[in-house]
């Protein structure tokens, strides 16, 4: 389910973070930027795994931003260099300094591979198929043609759009009613492009959608097989 991805990024540290140790300040900024966000074709960022390298920052004269490289091994070097840079650029830097750093780091990404078996819970069930959720990720869709064959929908009398899917096997009905967890196989992952306009009533945009399949022995609610 999870992969490590190696990323390089140049980020700007706002002035109020400059009193923190550099590692902490940079980690905090990375978390604000990447945590719980989807990167297309990489997946959902779960966590910052580690920071590999931070390179010299440099000062852009005029806007008060100072960006420079710091080698994380030595914090003392960092402070000395900062002081040197500050005095050398006295003419340009103001007290509103920002620090820009080039950082190389690894992220823990949630990106299941095709064919992976994942256990999830039923979120909703309607004529289009099932929607499953795994607490930190909700956009898992099991379309009708990937349900166990043959399946039939028993519509909910209260709500026409919802219903309970039920698998028919050896003359017995096995409903998927959400009482226990459901095992599914990942069929594909898609990253729909961000829509330019959305209608007011439309569902919130899902940047990453997993399509799953239940059409195999051993898949479906765990109680069917255990």
């Amino acid at each position: 389910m999870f992969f490590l991805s190696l990323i390089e990024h140049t980020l700007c540290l706002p002035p109020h973070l400059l009193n923190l140790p550099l590692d902490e300040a940079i980690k905090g900024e990375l978390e604000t930027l990447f945590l719980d966000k989807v990167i297309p074709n990489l997946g959902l960022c779960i966590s910052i795994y580690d920071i590999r390298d931070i390179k010299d920052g440099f000062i852009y004269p005029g806007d008060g931003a100072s960006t420079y490289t710091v080698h994380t091994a030595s914090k003392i070097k960092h402070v000395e260099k900062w002081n040197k840079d500050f005095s050398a650029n006295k003419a340009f830097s103001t007290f509103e300094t920002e620090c820009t750093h080039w950082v190389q780091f690894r992220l823990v990404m949630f990106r299941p591979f095709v064919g992976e078996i994942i256990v999830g819970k039923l979120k909703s069930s309607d004529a289009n198929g099932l929607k499953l959720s795994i607490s930190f990720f909700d956009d898992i869709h099991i379309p009708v043609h990937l349900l166990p064959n043959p399946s039939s929908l028993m519509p909910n009398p209260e709500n026409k759009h919802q219903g309970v899917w039920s698998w028919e096997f050896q003359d017995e009905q096995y409903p998927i009613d959400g009482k226990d967890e459901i095992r599914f196989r990942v069929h594909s992952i898609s990253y729909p492009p961000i829509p330019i306009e959305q209608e007011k009533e439309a569902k919130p945009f899902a940047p990453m959608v997993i399509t799953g399949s239940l059409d195999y022995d051993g898949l479906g609610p765990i109680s069917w097989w255990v």
Partner: protein
Amino acid sequence: MKIVQANAGALTNFEVLDFLRSRGASTDPTRVIAPVAPSEFKVYDYLVQSAVCNQTRESINEFLKRCEKYDLANAEKLNIINIRPSSLVEIDPIIEECEKRMKSEDVEELVEMVVQVLPEHPASVGIERGTDVDKISPDQELMEAN
């Protein structure tokens, strides 16, 4: 932002759980002061009630050693470690073309090895040993990025 390596290594669910634990995530009330974000806690909560919550590095290494003779693909070993199948029907969707690649005695042996080596999910009810099902504990593979 530049992606240097999209895939710098796969992680088993256990490794992610271990990583979050080392950052301070836990299920008791002290979790509120740990430096762990709410979204990370959701991942932690999901993993802690899944089949990997009792796993250890030793059991995973043991699994990897013992499953070498079955010639499984890395993806299959990862699936087995994450799901911990305890019966033939549970391991069936994991191994591609199971009947062609492995004889049924080998699959039974593998399931038995899985059940032996990998710790059981605490919430699962013990599966009764039938005459036709031999549980084998899968060896767990650690696929860590360098």
